[in-house]
């Protein structure tokens, strides 16, 4: 098994005719993802790349192509609208890649989709991949291999780093999720840990956090209380100065809160294998899996 996406996932790409959308949709198809429709308002009725039908609304894509997941590449000013549309049309998994969505937009849209049966990933994230089955995102597919490790991360390239350290040691992944670097994201560490807890294939989870907010502390509480599997964690930003936004909109130590030290302490107390160096993620995973 795996979580969120698999070979049966039928994907619509919102913003498929844009530069980013086109580039990454092609890469996803090459990987084997079932991209069955695109949405660009005003371009309905055309074929993207001469093969994939484009619709004006997500609703049409759901009705005509049976899509159940949406991958969003629309610009930040229209992204919250696109998320709400995908949720309204009944997509169960929505992955928002877009960086730069105003936080108040995210706050409102997340509140609005609360009652729906939907799992939003992102925004400002690399997406989700179940190796060998479905890549919904912008990550380089070849670095992943199939296996027992689940990955949840607030970062993009740092996730690739961690995954590569595992893959080159012959340790594959069940599903990897970049949850995004914004202050408000669709799914938190806790939301996804709950899914991994129930997934038979996943034997260990790598959690990559960073400064800002309290999502890692909340994850630590959950892990201590209910999580059945070992967790290896790294927290980026130990050397980050307070009060400065480190690239990601959510990576900021504000009012003395959200430091790497606090997060590492909470995770250690929950029994998590916290690594000091980002270069030690792969070897720690190997060691912990070997012990089992």
């Amino acid at each position, binding site marked *: 098994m795996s979580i969120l996406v698999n070979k049966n996932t039928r994907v619509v790409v919102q913003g498929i005719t844009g530069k980013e959308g086109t580039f990454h949709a092609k890469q996803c198809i090459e990987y084997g993802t079932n991209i069955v429709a695109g949405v660009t308002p005003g371009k309905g009725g055309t074929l993207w790349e001469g093969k994939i039908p484009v619709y004006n609304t997500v609703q049409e894509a759901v009705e005509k192509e049976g899509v159940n997941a949406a991958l969003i590449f629309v610009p930040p000013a229209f992204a919250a609208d696109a998320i709400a549309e995908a949720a309204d049309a009944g997509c169960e998994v929505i992955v928002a890649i877009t960086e730069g969505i*105003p*936080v108040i937009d995210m706050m409102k849209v*997340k*509140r609005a989709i609360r009652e729906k049966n939907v799992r939003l990933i992102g925004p400002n994230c690399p997406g989700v991949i179940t190796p060998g089955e479905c890549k919904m995102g912008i990550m380089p597919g070849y670095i992943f291999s199939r296996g027992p490790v689940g990955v949840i991360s607030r970062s993009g*390239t740092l996730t690739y*780093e961690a995954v590569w350290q595992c893959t080159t040691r012959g340790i594959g992944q069940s599903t990897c999720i970049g949850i995004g670097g914004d202050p408000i994201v669709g799914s938190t560490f806790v939301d996804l840990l709950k899914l991994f807890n129930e997934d038979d294939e996943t034997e260990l989870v790598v959690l990559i956090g960073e400064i800002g907010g*309290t999502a890692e502390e909340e994850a630590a509480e959950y892990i201590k209380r209910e999580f059945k599997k070992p967790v290896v964690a790294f927290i980026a930003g130990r050397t980050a100065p307070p009060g400065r936004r*480190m690239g*990601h909109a959510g990576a900021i130590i504000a009012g003395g809160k959200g430091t790497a030290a606090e997060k590492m302490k909470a995770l250690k107390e929950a029994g998590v294998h916290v690594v000091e160096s980002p270069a030690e993620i792969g070897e720690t995973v190997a060691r912990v899996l070997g012990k089992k």
Partner: protein
Amino acid sequence: MKVHEYQAKELFKQYGIPVPRGGVAETPEEAKRIAEELGGNLFVVKAQVHAGGRGKAGGVKLARSVEEVYEVAKNMIGMKLVTHQTGPEGKLVRKVLVEEGLNIEKELYMGMVIDRSTERPVLMVSAEGGVEIEEVAARSPEKILKAYIDPALGIVPFYARKLAYGLGLTGDLVKKAIEFMMALYRLFIEKDASLAEINPLVITKEGNLIALDAKLNFDDNALYRHPEIAELRDIYEEDPLEVEASKYDLNYIKLDGTIGCMVNGAGLAMATMDIIKLYGGEPANFLDVGGAASSESVKNAFRILMSDPAVKAVFINIFGGIVRCDRVAEGIINAAKELEVKVPMVIRLEGTNRDVAMDMLKNSELKFILADSMADGAEKAVKAARGEI
């Protein structure tokens, strides 16, 4: 984005939030003229810099005559104000805000942020105004009252009523406080603020509620829909290298160390700083050249790093995923040649076509120091910065 107190107070006025009468001055003459127009015999002169702790640092002074306003303004404009938030180099005061003095009965605190955990706007008040709110939060958190506002509902009066009564206000002040909070909420949401803080919020002897101080930060991601807010940016308050980097769309933050970092992706960039520190070095900056690490962004990144005289070595740590490592290597070689980079360059590339890329770097006439892992790169960069390799 941060704005000055006087700019925040202008926005407050637009939303009907009471602030002291006053005006902003760039010269002592202007300051004097503002005081003359205000009248009375008690004035406050406040340095306008983007930093807290101005009062303790001598950036807020009382004056009892227009002549004294002139003298105070003369001393303040052009001074380097050093507060606990500015760093030891301080901040140059270019403008002062001259305001009427008030008869203060009591000092309160009010603030608003988006709470990340509940994903709601939270309005906070405290009867302990005028002091650092973090101190109050640490010492007696129960003295900070909070209302988590449902974003779908917006600020209905009960939230404000709860806080106003919680502060122990009575009579007319309750009504004034509710109006104040509802206006602040509207401003916050309509203008996409990320932080609002009024410390102190004062009750005057005449029974008015006035924002004596005003701090507003705005969501950078929302500035596209608020050109009037974007205009308030004061680049003099920012590090010149950071301003330069922002022109190239690079995420750059200047730090105090000697190892310049060039990394793709914010998380990996932070992790690179961390690992440098683990090996005993100090990063000179945070720099994210973007996930794709295009040759243009690599060149611009070199420009920024080379403008920092403290940089003794550069550590380039790129994970080439969608973008191939050989392309990145090509960009690095061209930029390093064109810009005649003088300091040692430690390079670690990982991902697609890594081996081809490493050969390209090895065979170029430039003396790159190649690393085969992140840890190896960090170790070599630390040694290079010390002149040991």
